[in-house]
């Protein structure tokens, strides 16, 4: 296939910029696509007519958009979609191969991400039910109606949903999918190495009958990203703390930064820790350890060193294989400097007393390895004596976790905020304490992987409540 050019989409219309960047194979550096880069002014101009995009979506009922989304899910998973500006088509296998080659994700992980996205699209009714807590879809269309014996009325909070996307994992795109069914156009800056998934999703939606105006896709610079975040009304940003901190106090911008997800074992279950090693290891390393729902700390009242050693024995031997290997466990770095930086940061903090890297002895070599031109980081498990250690509550874009000892009564005080907490305990008092904690976004009670997402249980913010507000309503009886 010729090298495709991915254009920008201006309310659905392709626009080829005079500025283009290459998206390259993370191993060979070979160009896999060129992508149009637009100046921020293009974004600002288009936002002046974004009402056209919402109007196009409002011609459909929510139920129709749910149906279109389901079709789009099938096309995304199994169909051919237009990928290049010259009509080049992309099969699912080509998508897998290309995304793998530019992101470093092995094929098997791309496939798993595809399945997650497909599930979200084909089960949108269930997702909406969870988000809206059971509001009938016709009420969403009318904006007003009677349910649960009372009048309810909702109004949109924004004209569009702005998205500044990451490159780390395709499944993060599932977060914005409900916006289409909720009649909110999207305005997106894709991740630099990952234009593939959002572009394929957008094309699948359009092929399924969704109005193209609903999709604005702008590979752009920092200024363009800032305009997307500040001018849409509501926006999501993905990135590390240094990127997202400036938006921390802006309620119109939902931040998706590090998850600092954790597994806690209660005092009542700690003697059974061996039963949970597989679950903990999967929580740390599934999806290449790249997700914000990957566990990055395991907090236990005792046996910390033993648990860390058991995890190290299990994860330490993981090594890079081929991208096609169905058993592949590790992802390569699209930007090798990121791998080098993480490796250096871990080594530097390991010099501080109070910790021990347990994986080193099971790894037969260095943490950072270069295989077939690709840079990889092998799993790292660090035992930390307390949360005071700088490696105790860190998150890296690779399979990394600390195992920290803390008395159960101190765990909540010490562990900080967490996107997901899996609490392995049957202690009702401890469970009650966790249930009332504001530090946890999603709580799994019992041995459930932190990676397990329930689509009817929104975590990281509720998209419906983000895009709609409830209004008090009075209607004179006829």
């Amino acid at each position, binding site marked *: 296939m010729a090298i495709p050019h991915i254009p920008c989409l201006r309310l659905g219309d392709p626009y080829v910029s*005079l500025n283009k960047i290459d998206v390259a194979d993370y191993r060979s550096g070979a160009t896999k696509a060129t992508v149009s*880069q637009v*100046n921020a002014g293009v974004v*600002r*101009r288009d936002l002046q007519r974004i009402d056209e995009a919402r109007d196009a979506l409002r011609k459909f009922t929510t139920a129709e958009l749910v149906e279109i989304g389901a079709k789009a899910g099938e096309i995304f998973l199994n169909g051919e979609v237009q990928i290049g500006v010259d009509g080049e088509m992309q099969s699912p296998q080509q998508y897998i191969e290309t995304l793998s080659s530019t992101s470093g994700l092995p094929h098997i992980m791309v496939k798993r991400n595809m399945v997650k996205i497909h599930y979200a699209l084909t089960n949108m009714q269930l997702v909406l039910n969870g988000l809206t807590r059971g509001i009938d879809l016709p009420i969403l269309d009318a904006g007003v109606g009677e349910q649960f014996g009372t009048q309810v009325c909702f109004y949109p909070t924004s004209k569009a949903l702005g998205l500044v996307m990451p490159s780390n994992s395709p499944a993060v795109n599932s977060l914005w999918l409900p916006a289409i069914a909720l009649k909110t156009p999207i305005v997106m800056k894709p991740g630099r190495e990952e234009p593939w998934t959002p572009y394929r999703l957008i094309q699948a939606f359009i092929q399924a009958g969704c109005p193209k105006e609903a999709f604005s896709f702008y590979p752009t610079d920092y200024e363009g990203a800032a305009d997307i975040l500040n001018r849409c009304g509501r926006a999501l940003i993905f990135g590390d703390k240094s990127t997202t901190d400036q938006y921390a106090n802006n309620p119109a911008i939902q931040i998706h930064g590090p998850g600092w997800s954790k597994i806690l074992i209660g005092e009542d279950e700690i003697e059974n820790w061996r039963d949970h090693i597989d679950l903990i290891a999967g929580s740390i390393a599934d999806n290449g350890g790249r997700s914000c729902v990957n566990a990055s700390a395991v907090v236990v009242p005792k046996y910390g060193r033993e648990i860390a050693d058991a995890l190290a024995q299990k994860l330490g031997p993981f090594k890079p294989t081929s991208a096609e290997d169905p058993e592949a466990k590790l992802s390569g770095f699209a930007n090798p400097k990121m791998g080098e930086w993480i490796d250096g940061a871990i080594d530097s903090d390991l010099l501080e007393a109070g910790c021990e890297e347990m994986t080193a002895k099971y790894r037969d070599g260095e943490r950072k390895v270069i295989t077939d031109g690709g840079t990889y980081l092998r799993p790292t498990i660090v035992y930390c004596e307390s949360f005071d250690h700088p490696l105790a509550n860190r998150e890296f874009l690779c399979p990394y976790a600390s195992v920290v000892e803390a008395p159960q009564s101190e765990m909540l005080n010490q562990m900080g905020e967490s996107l997901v907490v899996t609490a392995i305990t049957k202690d009702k008092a401890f469970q009650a304490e966790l249930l009332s904690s504001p530090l946890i976004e999603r709580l799994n009670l019992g041995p459930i992987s932190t990676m397990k997402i329930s689509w009817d249980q929104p975590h990281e913010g509720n998209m419906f409540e983000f895009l709609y507000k409830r209004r008090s309503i009075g209607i004179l009886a006829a």
Partner: protein
Amino acid sequence: MSNLDQNIQEAKAQLDAHTVEVVKWHFSPDTGSPFWLDWANKAGWNPAEEISCFDDIINKFPHFQDEWLRDMPNEIWRPKAYEGKPFSIFETGGTTGMPKQRIGWEDYKIDYSEFSETLNDNHFPRDHYWMMVGPTGPRRLRLSIEHLANVRGCSTYFVDLDPRWVKRLIAGKQFDQARAYMDHVIDQAVTILKNRKVSALFTTPKLLEALADRMDLIKAGIKGVFCGGTTMDKQYTRFLVEEVCENQIGFVPTYGNTLMGLARHRPFGPENDYSITYHAPQPRAVLRVVDPKKTENLVEYDSWGRVELTTLTKEFFMPRFLERDEAIRRSGWEKCPWDGVAEVRPFGAMEKKIVEGVY
């Protein structure tokens, strides 16, 4: 030999003759400036006798140090022939600390009067009104724009923007303040456009864009925009022409500064992907695109290099000043049969973040 080749040869001969004349002027005790006479004494050679063509300047002079314009008193630059005539003081830089200052009398008028002949009367109607929105204050640009308008029978409204303040705000990451200041500038421009008839605008690309976000420039009566001050890459130029000016308002980009004068552009558009090439007002100024590591050498045509400026007027002599810009070297054009500089951007723009500001 083609006409263009012949014109290139003639322009080179004209430049050589002009070079000899200007160098003699600056290095002769009867006419020259204290700075250059003193410089020649210390250098141990006499440019008035030894410079016989422009290439001699490249071969015999080191790069001009712009710190001299900051550290030396202004009068040291005054040619003896201008004694008794008060000079204008024009500044560049100065975001922090002392700015660099160039003195002058009539130079800017010469460049801009000449430039006026390149403007289309449909886009820049004569006997009407202009508005400048951008850095005025101690900059030569403010007088130059007014002179250009006057030459065409027009008068000018001014809205000032202080780029030193904007740069400080951005360097301090006070983006909200920078945005508020820009809004303040645009508010004033909008007020003028709503209450006065203006047909031509001089402004910077970002301010033009911001102004167009606030009002329909075509309905406001704007027919031509003369635009410069910050980088315009191909995509940005296309955006300004197609979407901000809607292919209706004449868009005239310019490259110039206090030290050079005003470069004119050659035709651009979809046929050349909106790549803008500028040509210096030779022989009064010469732009070369040089190898940054071996600055005596030009880069090949259509290759990137650092911009080097030599100014050759009786008011000001400045040999081989390395600009803080890089550009693509382009060959001569029928109306300017000498090298041009294309797609100018800050030197090292691809390697580091440059604060150019929102203005």
